[in-house]
């Protein structure tokens, strides 16, 4: 399995933390929109997240169109755990060296 990039991990983690809309993910990760959206599309293509449209009624109540939300899939949860392990190990290595 290919290892996730830092950007992908950040986005995936943000979704796992409950930020499920594109712009909210941008806000929470601090990454630019031109980075987050391609990352979302890639994660969806690779099966780590799944997207759906929110309930029309709720959007209507708030006077705006329905938004697309993202959820982490089972494969995404595994990939996130792997990546977290890896980056933690890497951080450990860097500390030893320094």
């Amino acid at each position, binding site marked *: 399995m290919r290892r996730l990039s830092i950007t992908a991990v950040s986005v995936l983690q943000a979704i796992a933390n409950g930020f499920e*809309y*594109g*712009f909210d993910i*941008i806000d929470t990760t601090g990454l*630019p*929109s*031109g*980075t*987050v*959206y*391609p990352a979302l*599309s*890639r994660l969806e*293509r690779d099966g780590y997240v799944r997207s759906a449209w929110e309930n029309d009624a709720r*959007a*209507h109540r*708030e*006077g*705006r*169109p*329905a*938004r*697309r939300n993202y959820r982490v899939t089972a494969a995404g949860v595994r990939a996130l755990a792997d990546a977290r392990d890896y980056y933690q190990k890497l951080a450990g290595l860097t500390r030893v060296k320094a």
Partner: protein
Amino acid sequence: VTVPRTRWLRACEWILAGAAPVVPADMRRDWMREWHAELAHRATRQSHAGLPLVVRSCGALAHAAWLRWDRWRLEMLLQDVRYAARTLIRKPGFAVITVLTLALGIGANTAIFSAVRAVLLRPLPFPQPDALVFVSSTTVAAPTRAGGAASPPDFVDWRQQNRSFTELAALYASSYALTGVGTAEQIPGATATGGLFNILGVPALYGRTLDLSDDAIGGADVAVIGHGLWSRRFGSDPSIVGRTVMLDGVERRIVGVMPRGFAFPLESELWVPLRLSERELATQRGAHYLEVVGRLKDGVSLEQAAGDMNGIVRQLAAAYPRTNRDKRAAVHTFRDALVGDVRPALFMLLGAVGFVLLIVCVNVANLVLTRALGRTREMAIRTALGAGRFRLVRGVLVESLLLATIGGVAGLGVAIWAARGIAALQRGLDIPLLDQTRIDPVVIAFTAVVSIAAALLCGTLPAWHTSALGQLAQRIRADGGTGTGDRKRHRLRATLIVTETAVAVVLLVGAGLLLRSFMRLTSVELGIDTAGVQTFNISLPETRYSQPMQRAEFVSALLDDLARQPGVDSAGAIFGLPLSNTRYTISMSTLDGRRLSDEEQDRRSLQVRVATPDYFRTLRIPLVQGRPFTASDRLGAPYVVIVNETAAKMLWPSESALGHQFTLGTRMGQEGANAGGVVVGVARDVRDFGARVPARPTVYLAHAQFPVDSVAVTVRGGAGSSLLEPLRAVVQRHDADVPIFRVRTMEQLAADAVAQPRVYMLLLGLFAATAVVLAALGIYGVLAHAVSQRTREIGIRLALGAGRYSVVTMVVRQAAGLAIAGLTIGLGLALAAGGAVQNLLFGVEPTDTTTYLSVAVGLLLIALAASYVPARRAAGVDPVRALRYD
């Protein structure tokens, strides 16, 4: 749902609308919806609307581009590659020819680039190599020239006063006879002050390097050895550190072994301390023989360092006007000092080989176009089935990419083979670092970039054009077809051929100029007869040959013995062998008994050579006046000298040189006598520094009177190398501890002297020849196609009574038209690009009329030859069959 449409939101929508077409059609609706929803969501919260929202919506552009790219990549990989591969396999002839041409073009580019990288680009093997510099002592006349040696007192002053370098070190290249362990061997190395290794920043593999403590007068006799010498002569034994070896008759303790690959100066294998005595520092301000290297302090630029050094040099000039007047200093990086001279030549070759690739690409583009004709139907069907133009373009592009990738891989194979050849050229060419030529990751990356560029170059135009075929074919079906598209395509092909021819002309002119220059260069009389002369160097160790008489007698007895060997005609010896690049210039101090003023001394400096009596006979240097040295010109007899014609003309323009006498400002004689004497002969000029450099005013001293310890022995005999072993044995017999080194024939030396121009000429010639062949093939292809397209027209003409001759003329005129258009553009380009070869030319102007005319005539003839077959085919058209055929 209505969202208040603010100014900002409208700007965001424009951006979305701009990006939307890039998104793959099946995803566009959802994409649009998502972005709209997010923007609207923010817009409803007033605090988030505004410029930041516009900035954020710009991400939609990147998102759209990514989606398109992702889709494209997938499809390209899966579909187009498979399709391209199938099409290519169906027509293997086309694929093979294209791949081979591309492989040659890409391979040649990679090979030349690998040489450029080795010589000019790859970092030198030292920490922070850009801070490493040579400091040269120069003059007002050429203040920035690299390579000027410094005198010991100047070096010490530079070292103490500068503020730009962490350290300065001095060294001179030297060689030492290693004796006492097996066969005596002369080891190239350097005598250097201890700071050298600190500056270079390379630690020893075993033991230690030289350091500043080694500079002290009276210090221990130590040496550091190189990895090659260590493994070759000492079996890679680490316990060698601390042992003593005999070097030039002196016992030296080895204190360190340097790691593999360390050789500074290039090819050095041995380093011993340079110790400057008080006496040297007091008396040698005019003796320039030290190379000075340093490491720039952090943040100090080359210009600042040069400014600092020139400040010091000016102070020294004021303090020591006699020796330091008009002196300057120059600071060059190692790279510049080492290879500054070959940079233009290498870039010229890189440019030329780039041109070859351009021609290759044009030719391949032409092949692709020709092939496209056969695919009109296929394109029409694909268009009819709904393939967009973009899709068709992509298909052809992928095909070119596939071809270029295979071509690139094959080209890399060609380059690996060629790089080995280039590295092996180093010895003869004497281009520093050329032996480091190899294919490394950077070179591979270069190949990849070149391959992709080639794919785009030879794919784009035909791709666009081919895709038009689909629409064209449909149009033809609709309106019966007038063939306008065909004419357009023919025009495109003709344009490609003209481009190709023009580039070929530029290369041809370049090759022609280098060829003529090379012919000039090799036709210059060097002033010596190189045929059948074997040379080698010997160096007498100071410990056992400390007395001048001992050295004179050794050399004289050795030469007598050598001359008596079977097959030997004569044997001589000289300090400062022609073409060996020995510079030893000394100013005159007295002339006919009169002491010369400082200014007169500056104007009258002579290249000093020290020769034995039979040297002139051995190299067949005629004496135009007077006599050669004889056995009676020995120590104790009156000092005599021979001057060359240039010196005689310079010193005594209107009278004979014979009988005049002078001395030089160097105490080479017995008991410190100045070198010089009475002129007894005038020798014909010799171009000591190769054909490009006219003979310098030269004085020959008699070796018996000024017995220097290091000479080149020259032996004239029959077949060169068969003499060598007996000669080596003779030297061994005289003194087993005197090794012979720099063993070469004079013919080799002469060939090496023109090796660089020869290789440049051959390479450019090869490139030009390739270019011409490809251009001729291109012209042939266009004409052949034109004739086949016009078979019906030619048939009608013939049926209506046109003569075969006029048909032939028609085809030939077309060929001439293409060639003349290419020639006109090419000659113009060549005139503009003449500067690229200017530095490499000798005795030929970059605008040389003969070259231009020859190229023009030659190319026209080639174009006509290329039109021969198509013209014959046109003339052979049978009108009846041609008409029926249609």
